[in-house]
């Protein structure tokens, strides 16, 4: 005997209470938000560190090109200054690389790991949804038979339907419970998870900038040019420009 094709209807009974559904939506919603934010944070952190490295490299290029200019051979003072500058830049670049490595290890990698849990979560949610659909469908079927006149064939089909429904319902309940338990736990784990990373991030900055301060502080001493306020520097630059312009060979514009 072949099955009578059966329309998939909606069950009359609300099989999943509204509060439960709402709770689920809320918890899952929070996690979806978190997923988005961690993904973008990771991307931005990576791009930021790349830009940081690029900046450092271009600083090194400044001193490298100066050093390769033949003027260095002629002018001892210039050579000394440029050599000192080059040393400083190279050291800073090394420290910068170390800083970036530390950030990579303690911030970006953990972010990535955190993010890798989400696909599994999303799959589990999908499976629950699928189970819910099946549950709904079979529940509707049972209800349909329950409403009909209790003839033999109907009873047989009802019995059939109930047999089918039972395991599907159990499956859904199990999945639902598991997720309702695990989702908040996972969400809360972010608190403890990220604090060490960001602490590490701050500390890495302190380490780097302490070195930078020391190195460039020493260099300014060595170059024997006292730091002067901005207006004075501006005046200096104006003076240098006028000196040049005073020469006939310099065009006036």
């Amino acid at each position, binding site marked *: 005997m072949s*099955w009578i094709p059966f329309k998939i209807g909606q069950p009359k009974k609300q099989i999943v209470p509204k509060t439960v559904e709402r709770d689920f939506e809320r918890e899952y919603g929070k996690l979806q938000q978190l997923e988005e*934010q*961690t993904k*973008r*944070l990771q991307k*931005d952190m990576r791009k930021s560190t790349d*830009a*940081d490295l*690029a*900046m450092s490299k*271009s600083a090194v*290029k*400044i001193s490298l*090109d100066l050093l390769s*200019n*033949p*003027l260095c051979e002629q002018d001892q*003072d*210039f050579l000394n*200054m*440029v050599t000192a500058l080059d040393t400083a830049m190279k050291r800073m670049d090394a420290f910068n690389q170390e800083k970036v490595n530390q950030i990579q290890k303690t911030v970006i990698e*953990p972010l990535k*790991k955190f993010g890798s849990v989400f696909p*599994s979560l999303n*799959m589990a949610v999908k499976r629950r949804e699928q189970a819910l659909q099946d549950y709904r469908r079979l529940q509707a079927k049972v209800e349909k038979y329950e409403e009909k006149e209790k003839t*033999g*064939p109907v*009873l*047989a089909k009802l019995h059939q339907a109930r*047999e089918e429904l039972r395991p599907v319902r*159990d*499956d859904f309940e*199990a999945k639902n419970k598991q997720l309702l338990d*695990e989702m908040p736990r996972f969400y809360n*784990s*972010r*608190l403890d998870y990220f*604090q*060490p990373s*960001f*602490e*590490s991030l*701050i*500390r890495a900055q*302190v380490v780097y900038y*302490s070195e*930078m*301060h020391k190195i460039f502080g020493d260099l*300014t001493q060595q170059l024997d040019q006292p730091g002067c306020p*901005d207006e004075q*520097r501006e005046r*200096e*630059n104006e003076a240098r420009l006028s*000196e*040049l312009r005073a020469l*006939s*060979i*310099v*065009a*006036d514009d």
Partner: protein
Amino acid sequence: MTSHGDDALSSRTGAPGGDDRLSEDRSLLQQRLAVRELLDTEVSYLHVLQLCASDIRSRLQQLPQGDLDVLFSNIDDIIKVNSRLLHDLQETASREEEQVQLIGNTFLEFQEELEQVYKVYCASYEQALLLVETYRKEPELQREIQGIIEAVLPQAGPSGLSFLLVIPLQRITKYPLLLQKILENTLPDASAYAVLQRATSALQDVVTNINEYKRRKEVASKYTKVEPLSLRERLARINTHTLSKKTTRLSQLLKQEAGLVPRTEDKEFDDLEEKFHWVSLCVTELKSNVAAYLDNLEAFLRFRPQDYNLEIPGGPVVQYCYLARDLQLQAFPEFKQQLEAQVWQPLCSLAKALAGPQNLIKKRLDKLLDFERVEEKLLEVGSMTYEEEAARHTYQALNSLLVAELPQFNQLAMRWLSQILCAFVTLQRDLAKQVLQRAEDSLAQLPHHHLSEPAFRKLVEDALGQTSHQLRAFQENFEKVLPPPTTQPLLPGAERQVQALLSRYGPGKLYQVTSNISGAGTLDLTLPRGHIVALLQNKDTKGNSSRWLVDTGGHRGYVPAGKLEVYHVVPTEEELRGQARPHKDSQHQTPEPTSAPVPSVPTVTQVVAVYPFVARSSHEVSLQAGQWVTVLEAHDKKGNPEWSLVEVNGQRGYVPSSFLARAPSPAPWGWSLPS
């Protein structure tokens, strides 16, 4: 002074043979007159200058300050120098004997200053004249200016302003002539003569130098500018003249390259040029490197990881967000701004200043080729045209200008470059200080700030290791796939069929149909979803492995393999089953005798009659659908499982087994209907 002259004149009439003395006296008189002229003219000159500088200039209100600066240039400096000169010259008046010598000395002392101060004035004179021309074109303005000048200096005449402005030029060129006049009337053996002679030539040099200076300035301003010309404009400039110039230069260059003509080697210039070239290279490279650095800084500042919200209310995460925001809004933009003002802008100005010398050097080379050709011609022919003479002069002017000023340029540029680099370094230090201050504040509020860096790193490593485990646990939890619900339950009566197949073929060979199969060919089966079959062969006679040969328990045939799923036997009251006899297709409802002996297991169960049945003999009993019956024996007297002995409504009889269904019976085991 005149008394001497009078004495000389009066003594003349007296003594005979006084001709020599006569001319001597006359010379002396002339000398005295010349000296007088010098001083008197100086006095009136200075007077006029002062009137110009104060009265006239201050009344020319309608002209903008910039214009006044050009017109009157450094007239104040001239007044200062000339005042002192006049003062010193007047002092010499008291020392009659040595006056001439003192005058000579005075001029020698003032030589340098006069040159410096007048060359500036002369250099801007051309421009001043241009301005005067423009004023002349405006009648209203011209009238006003004229009015003012006439009020102060009526002797200026109708050409007022230009008359006044040329006065300093006239004066400086006059000095050599005035001194010459005194010199002519001085005895060659007088001690004053040598001094005066030196003074005269000195002042002559001053005039020459001023002219040279003026010429260099003109040449410089002609050639330092590079006008951005479009191709069309460039083409328009080509005419026979320029073409011939260029071809001549080219041929000269080629001759040099071929060694036919000696190249003018000028080591001094070449060294200067080389150094200038390196300075330019340094500046342009530095400029482009700083530009790249600034671009990277800008890119770095575009990323704002602190803007993302993890909904973490406190602790290091929040600390970091504050810190990052602070840095991005204050410390870094300030740094960038200062870099632009103190490093980038100056570099741009310095780079721009390179253009002038670069053009002049290029032009000099061109002119040099011209010059060399002219020199050649001069050797061959002994004369040159006016144009050739001009070319020669231009080259010489350019060359001397560059030789004089390039070293200064190089030095100034290097000095500025060093300052710019120092600024760069200082700014880096200041940035570090700013960031460090803020970061250390944040650090102080972190939980582990007291730990040393290595200790902290170890701590973080451990913490991350732990949380990594935790995350893996979460992931595994989410990935745990609970066993899927059991596959579709069986058709009524199918359980026995399953048992039959199971005992015949074994559990590994059972499959369940997952969706309705409609057979097409004669050997294909039509089976409903849920039906259980046993696999006989997993391919057909042609070797097609997607068409399987199966046994339904009654029929054999082919079914598509894709619609079969491995069937796991779910034990449901298996102890009640014992039949191993293959079960015919349940479509057949008439009982058929079978020959195979079947061990009968006595069963007493409650079942529901699924279909109505009309008894056709006294052995049979009628059923109504949905009726509860008690199964006494699940087979007939011959052991055929297709018939069951049941009791219903007090009656006993046989009914087709397939009309009965197992239903969850509320009655405990052994319950039976009252007979």
